[in-house]
């Protein structure tokens, strides 16, 4: 600080200019940032506002597993209801159940698969395989979901239909639902394959960024490669693994197009009591329901019901974001970088 500015006579040179052009720039850029803020706030507010009638009409029954009712029939009724007598009855439990089963199963399998594959890539893979595998994994992470859906519906569904949907299987659920290969089993499988590559990429990056001194230290103590990787590398990469898991869950939750192609267009709640047939039963998760019924948005009660579905997805996504942020904050306390 110059003497003059310290006395307060005159502000230092660059400071002067900063007050005008910089402030303008700051305000402009701040406005841009606020646009982003306003968009999200607007999205949350408007979606909930539109969705509220459906929730308020049904109350807790909207979510309840014991409410009964057939979602497809209810959607039909809502669609055909007139403006003067709007029907809003919706018991969306089958959709919620389908979403939960598919998402959670896929994420669990994908996390295990991604962790082991990442360890393979980082530690055990021969150089040739590794150099070939890494770009392929990155490519798979970028493949659009509709292509996965295409493979699912043209290859996997007929295969499952031929191999697993035997006559006896069909008989056992004949009264309730018909099996034709489009099932949650295929949905879980394709979804797992879809979300694993991005998880692998994140975990591999995290394992590689663990400081080499830790690994050297573990190995110098006479610990074998696998143990050293597991107890030091994977442990230090835990925040990244959690982040990858959250990211994968968010993607799995919102996957609409692929699942609508592959899990069948029947909003049925698969019954775990059916044993292995459970995985052959069709279902329709929330996001797929919205996309399947998107033509009906011109009918207000129908639109409100669909917005209610979207609201549930939005809340889950926001909740996942915060959960991920919180868990990563907790884990980061134990992984300070070495001096």
């Amino acid at each position, binding site marked *: 600080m110059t003497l003059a500015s310290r006395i307060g006579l005159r502000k230092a040179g*660059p400071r002067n200019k*900063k007050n005008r052009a*910089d402030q303008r*720039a*700051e305000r*402009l850029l701040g406005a*841009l*940032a606020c646009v*982003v803020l306003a968009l999200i706030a*607007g999205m949350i507010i*408007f*979606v909930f506002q*539109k969705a509220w009638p459906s929730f308020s009409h049904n109350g807790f029954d909207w979510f309840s597993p014991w409410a009964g009712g057939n979602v497809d029939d209810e959607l039909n009724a809502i669609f055909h209801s007139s403006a003067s007598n709007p029907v809003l009855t919706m018991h969306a439990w089958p959709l919620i159940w389908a979403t939960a089963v598919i998402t959670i199963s896929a994420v669990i399998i994908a996390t295990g*698969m991604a962790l*082991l*594959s990442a360890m*393979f890539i980082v*530690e*055990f*893979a021969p150089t040739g395989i590794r150099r070939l*595998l890494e770009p392929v*994994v990155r490519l*798979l992470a*970028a*493949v*659009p979901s509709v*292509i996965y*859906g*295409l*493979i699912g*519906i*043209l*290859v996997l569904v007929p295969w499952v239909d031929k191999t697993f949907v035997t006559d006896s299987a069909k008989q056992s659920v004949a009264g309730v639902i018909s099996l034709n290969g489009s099932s949650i089993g295929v949905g879980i499988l394709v979804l797992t*394959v879809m979300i*694993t*590559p991005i998880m692998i990429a994140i975990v591999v990056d995290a394992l590689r960024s663990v400081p080499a001194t830790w690994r050297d230290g573990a190995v110098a103590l006479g610990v074998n490669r*696998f143990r050293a990787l*597991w107890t030091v590398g994977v442990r230090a990469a835990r925040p990244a693994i959690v982040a990858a898991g*959250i*990211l994968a869950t*968010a993607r799995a*939750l*919102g996957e*609409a*197009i692929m699942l*609508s*192609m592959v899990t069948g267009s029947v909003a049925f709640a698969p019954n775990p009591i059916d044993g292995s047939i459970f995985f052959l039963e069709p279902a329709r998760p929330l*996001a797929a329901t*919205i*996309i399947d019924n*998107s033509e009906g*948005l*011109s009918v207000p009660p129908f639109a409100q019901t669909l*917005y209610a579905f*979207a609201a549930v*997805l*939005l809340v889950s*996504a*926001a909740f996942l*974001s915060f959960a991920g942020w919180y868990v990563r904050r907790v884990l980061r306390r134990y992984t300070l970088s070495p001096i």
Partner: protein
Amino acid sequence: MSSAPVSGRLPLRKRLPQMPEMPKLRRDRPLPDPDEQVAWSPIDRLGVAACWAAGLLLCAIAFSIVIYLLVRGIQFVTVDAIGQHPVVGQSTDAGPSTAGGYLDPILGTLILTTIGTLIALPIGVGTAIWLSEYGRPSWLARAVESCVEIIAGTPTIVIAIFGLLVFTQNLFGFLSFTAEGGAVFGRSFIIAGIMMSLIALPLIITSTREAMQSIPAHVREASYALGKDKISTIRRVLLPASRKGIATGTTLGMGRIAGDTAIVVLLLGASLTLQGQGGGVLGTLKGTGSTLTSYVFANSPAGEANSPEKAYAAAFVLLIIVIFMNFAVDMLSRRRSDK
């Protein structure tokens, strides 16, 4: 094992012809616990085997997907089909329908990607600059950061339905087609482009922010010491240095836009060809059309026109585009940035 020459490349572990006598040593410490001598316990071996299994399974799945798509695609892609307009043709038992091409879907993908990126780029870069260089007041910065994370995690179907909600208001009738009854159609290229920009936004913001934050402090200080104010520093020094990060984020965003189906299905109308509203470029933008993703969806068994051959062909073209973008991102992130 004979002695090898020392010059040139040294061979591994040459053994000397005679080993000197080492005196017998008296241990002055007890022998270690024999249980401690196990270097690789069964659990460790199981772990390594699991890693290998996961890695090989990953290889198998990854390569089979890529190869299958390439094979099927090459089978059905004809070069002149790229230049033809799509024609609705069903595959019958008599033979596959190969009528028509996919010029319009390709154009649709290009238009949508361009619009989405053009909108997202300035907003994204501006917000990123504000977040990394200004960021006052801090509660606002944190709120904006949370919003960016929420957008990143929101399912695209929710963004699509929000777009429909907003743009069917009469206020935005100029952006699309308005039917006679006064109902705004709410679906057009512009509208889809605007919502697409939302899904590219988090990627651009994150990449730009990382790039700007990785510029060391002394570069900024040098610029300030020369008397430049903050906004000139940003414009002349920091932005050019972050070019690589911005390009990476933009390409990732473009890839995501090109691969998204949900927004297209909801917000682009269901026309196979480009149906403009009025003449010229603006008319096309206000009109409806299709993209490669919705074309694939429509031609799959889940869509209206059941012609898998066209679907495979379009999927192949889409895959090529995605591979190309991936490659571009790889090149960008691998090349050393010259500061």
